[in-house]
């Protein structure tokens, strides 16, 4: 709960208008269906809504709300259970066998059967809440119709990621949008999404039009405020981490504000998402502050030496000067730090935005060299490089070069089969029967495209085409015959040229290799695996670069075997 409080407080500066609007709508307005659209980050929008709801629930006991995530509630039953338990303030207990809220009704009543029982459940909750409100405990009497005395209870049902309702439970959308009129309970349905209502709306106008609330795009200042709010408020959050305990010392808060401004100015053109920016900032900050902490520690050491020397001198009691305190760096040092770390921010964006690595690991491997501020500016890049080299972990990465030789041949053959059109095979790989061994195809030369014809997009930009297993094996046979014949152990029993290869490609190990590669998803099986009486088809799952690398490893001239490489000369 604390998180949300913090979130609300910090998000309100930027989302003030939305928050007040929501408060007004949820308390006063009779509307029963709202649609909050936030193109940037629906997570933040639902955070705002949660904050508003919490605040309202804190003010009045007659206000209850439930949040349902359409991804998490992937069956109607889950959805009903989640909503009813939340509205009735019921927490299922393991000791009771995780029973749902049962209401005051008799045994065996279940509310999660269908939309009908769900509506009854809503009414029961409303009645109970009302009775509890007006009569207090003990005298509660169930009144399922909900037409009791006193003010009615206000419910809010927020649905996050409602776009998923469409595929999972499309039958629920209409009832949910008309929940108030169906259940006769004062309930507001709020959809929070980064998809527009037009894309979810059920056909033929079965749902009423919602009231649209568009969350405005966060301004730069709002983003900066949001980022600054992630500065850990106290040191309790640092207990378990292995970074310096002083990293998030409150004295650095002003510096942090400057720091996030720099992060924003560099990464802003690529992403506005405050979460992403905060992620990058969190990864860079420990390294950013490291030089200052180093400097401080140096001063501490000097102070201790000073104390020691003074003790030796004999005037130990003269305690006129305390240990140096951690202070925010000067303007000068700040500018210098920012200048030093700006290049690494771009690197951080490149590595962290696609999550090639995670923030904690990135922070560890990009620790700046010690005592950075004492290094001469001209030496700084060298020092950075040395530090990075020192942190590069020597764990051996099992790349594609760990694959056995046949697997590489199969993958290259698959790449060719997926890139070349099938009708080009005879031209590309066909060899006359008389000189089956080692006849190089004469270069076809780039075909002259007639002016005015539309340029065909190369297949390798369009994605792989699928191919049958026998086509793959045939291409593999040609590749093996031309590039692998010398490395095989000798087998005098094969006398006909090409016979050895023919035997090799019909061996079990090759088929096993194909299946193993397809289980690694380096080959994608496109035919259903349970169908065994037809030729299995595959697609290549490796990129051009990987194929090129593999081909180079085993000595295949890939570029001269790619059909379009010849046609366009664009190898």
């Amino acid at each position, binding site marked *: 709960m604390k998180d949300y409080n913090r979130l609300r407080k910090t998000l309100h500066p930027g989302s003030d208008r939305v928050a007040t609007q929501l408060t007004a709508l949820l308390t006063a307005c009779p509307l029963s269906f709202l649609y909050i659209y936030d193109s940037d980050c629906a997570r933040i929008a639902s955070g705002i809504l949660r904050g508003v709801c919490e605040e309202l629930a804190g003010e009045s006991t007659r206000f209850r709300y439930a949040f349902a*995530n359409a991804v*998490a509630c*992937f*069956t109607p039953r*889950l959805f009903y*259970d989640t909503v009813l338990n939340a509205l009735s303030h019921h*927490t*299922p207990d393991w*000791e009771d*066998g*995780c*029973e*749902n809220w049962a209401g005051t009704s008799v045994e065996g*009543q*279940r509310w999660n059967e269908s939309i009908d029982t769900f509506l009854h459940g809503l009414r029961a909750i409303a009645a109970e809440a009302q009775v509890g409100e007006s009569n207090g405990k003990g005298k509660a009497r169930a009144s399922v119709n909900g037409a009791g005395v006193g003010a009615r209870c206000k419910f809010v049902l927020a649905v996050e990621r409602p776009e998923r309702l469409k595929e999972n439970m499309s039958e629920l959308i209409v009832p949910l949008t008309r929940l108030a009129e169906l259940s006769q309970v004062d309930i507001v349905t709020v959809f929070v999404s980064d998809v527009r209502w037009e894309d979810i709306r059920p056909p033929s106008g079965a749902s009423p039009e919602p009231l649209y609330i568009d969350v405005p795009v966060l301004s730069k200042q709002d983003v900066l405020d949001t980022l600054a709010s*992630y500065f*850990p408020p106290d040191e309790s959050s640092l207990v*378990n*981490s292995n*970074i310096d305990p002083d990293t998030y010392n409150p004295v650095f808060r002003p510096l942090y504000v400057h720091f996030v401004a720099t992060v924003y100015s560099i990464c802003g053109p690529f992403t506005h998402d405050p*979460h*992403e920016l*905060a992620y990058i*900032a*969190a*990864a860079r900050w*420990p390294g950013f502050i490291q030089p200052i902490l180093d400097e401080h520690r140096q001063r501490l050491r000097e102070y201790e030496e000073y104390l020691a020397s003074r003790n030796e001198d004999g005037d130990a009691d003269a305690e006129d000067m305390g240990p140096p305190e951690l202070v925010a760096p000067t303007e000068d040092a700040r500018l210098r730090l920012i200048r030093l770390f700006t290049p690494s921010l771009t690197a951080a964006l490149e590595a962290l935005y*696609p*999550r*090639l*690595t*995670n*923030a*904690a690991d990135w*922070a560890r491997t990009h620790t700046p060299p010690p005592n950075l501020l004492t290094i001469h500016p001209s030496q700084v890049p060298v020092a950075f490089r040395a530090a990075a080299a020192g942190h590069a972990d020597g*764990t*051996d*990465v*099992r*790349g*594609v070069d*760990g*694959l*056995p*030789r046949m697997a590489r041949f199969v993958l290259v053959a698959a790449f060719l089969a997926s890139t070349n059109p099938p009708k080009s095979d005879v031209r590309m790989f066909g060899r006359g029967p008389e000189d089956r061994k080692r006849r190089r195809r004469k270069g076809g030369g780039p075909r002259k495209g007639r002016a005015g014809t539309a340029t065909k997009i190369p297949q390798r930009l369009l994605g792989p085409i699928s191919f049958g297993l026998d086509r793959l094996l045939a291409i593999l046979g040609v590749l093996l015959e031309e590039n692998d014949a010398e490395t095989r152990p000798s087998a005098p*029993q094969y006398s*006909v040229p090409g*016979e050895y290869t023919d*035997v090799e490609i*019909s*061996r*079990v*190990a090759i088929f*096993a*290799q194909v299946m*193993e590669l397809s*289980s*690694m*998803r380096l080959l994608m099986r496109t035919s259903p695996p349970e169908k065994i009486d037809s030729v299995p088809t595959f697609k290549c*799952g490796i990129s051009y670069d990987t194929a090129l690398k593999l081909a180079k490893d085993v000595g295949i001239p890939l570029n001269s075997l790619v059909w379009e490489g010849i046609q366009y000369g664009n190898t």
Partner: protein
Amino acid sequence: MQDQTQPCVYLSPDDEEHDDGLPPEPLHPSQWRDLPSGYVQRMKVYKTLWARCLSRMQTLVHAIHAPVACEVALEIKSAYEDQLPGLPYHEIPVIALAAEPGSPIYADVVSQLESPSTVQGQERRDLLIHLHPSECPNLLSMMRAVVTGFTAQSGTERRTRSAVSLANYDFARLQAWYRTLDSHPNLVVFVHDFEQFDVGVVQDALYICSLHVPRVPLVFVLGLTSPSTPTHLHKAYARSTLALLRIRAFTAPSGQSVTEEVLARTYFDPTFEPDIMIGPATLDFLHDFASRHTSSLDALYTVLQLAHMKHFTEPLTVLADASSDAHPSLTDESARPFVSALALRLQRSTDSAPDDLLDAVQSARAAFHRKARELRVALAAAEAARRIGQMAGAHSVEEEDALQFARAVLRGRVEKEVRYLGMVVRKLPAEQLGMLLAELLALFEQVGAGGDGSEEGTPHAQLQNLFAQLPRSEEGEDGNPDADGPPQEDGAPGVRELSDALGGWLVDFLEQRFVRLDEGPLWDMWYMGNTPFPAELINPAPRLAVVSALTHPSDFARAHCELLEPAPSPSASPSPADPLDLDGDEEDEGEEALWELPDASILFRRYVEAGRMVNVYDWFQSFAVVLEGQRRRLRKREREAEGEDEEESEEEGASAEEESEEWVEEVQARFMRALHTLDWMGFVRHTGRKADHIIRTVYDVLD
């Protein structure tokens, strides 16, 4: 096509049902000199010895994996302790563990996790479940597997009235269960074969879990088999999903380097003594297979196991195990051929007492193992010299690894290499010379081989003498307690002499020790020698084998009948299994006429000549024509044999009418049987549209 007959060598015709644990007893040309129950007893010995070898290899693999497994376990345990502050939301810790399929590293990690860890003063044991792709075809079953997998572990499964409680795939249920736990363990989810999971399902499941961390501290361990750069995660999953995870990648050591290390330390380690020594042919095959097809440990185990099994087809190997005291009784009359064969090998008279023979076997075993041990020590010494020589900047004659060198040693082709090593040692500078000497001494200490150093003339003693002459530099080698000779101060010239001496010693030593193992009495009991590895069993070409069996059935029949023939005489009699009574002399000429072939082969020959689709009626017609010719020829041959031609033909003409009816039926029946045989073997595909046609499944048939 000769070797195409190989795959069927060990397949006896009726080996479908053998559920008594033991494989069917293969017949072997050398069976005549086998003991009556030789096969069973050899299998017993094989099992003991192979188990010993396998457990050695598994121990080695375990040791190789231990560091990574330890690291992963530590990472799992501390997944929620080591968090970077300042992150906008909590991430799910995910460990991407790249290992070969079925790698034992998972078991290692799990056993590491079994031990409780102490976190913040209280003891905690993380709970774990395993997910497999087959359990998780959709989101509902995946969530159910996660929720019930954990809740079932606490042992306090509550009574549930399913309808009015939370669904068993509801994450809230897991949450409610977790609240009751006192120790707050991490919940570890092992996802095996991660590539096989449906991306959409896993994406949603991770999203749901991310809504609940860190209140329910889940840790995912994803078992990947694909190469780790770039990982399958980054290739297949959307950025929005990746943003929910904190991915740490680990790679279990695997591939050729691991298999070769295991191999080297099983067979060429001076501290371990394998019962059956591997031969260079098997080593060659293993090397080729690992680099070409798969370098998985499973493949290594299977190949070696097969090599052991092949080794134990030799009747004499029943005496291979020294420790087994259950030696077969050799006094029986039925053991006579075995005893005489053994005596012949030992160059004794065939009527020597069995106990004498057994004693001779014992001493032969001791001699062989001593020789093999000395060879291994020498190999280790050569390896040390090579390594230190490389440190000093010398290049070996050829760029090869230790295993290749070992293969050359087993083949006895290393004179050049040995002389080169001696030269390298002669040129070593003082520092490396000291290192080499210390290492060699340590080696001898370790194995305790070559005498205990007290006798003059053993390599160990010679080495100690040399070491005593080593001029001590100020850093002071902490050498051998035995070697306490006074340091000499004569500097460089002393070193030169010493290195000359050491080089000479090394060459002598290696030449003396690098002997061929396939000499000496009964060597083939403990050494695989140069017998080729039965590669066809590991990597057969089934379709080609079937096709060539159908086109040349008599070759196969002959090979099979030779195999089944227990008689020592290799002259094969015509196979009784042949459906047709074939003449021996015609057979030897290779190609038989079409009519001589069995029905299925005739049909197959016609099939090969057809187009993409085969009209079944035409097929039948041509089949009938061949059978007609066959009948005519057989009749003719019969008549020639019986010598009565005139009268019979008249009688025949009389019964021709009714016989032709019978004949047509017989042809039809034989056609159907042959067709079904081909269908059963998968050569025939039926079309939905043309009822009277079938589609071929095999096209390019080589002759």
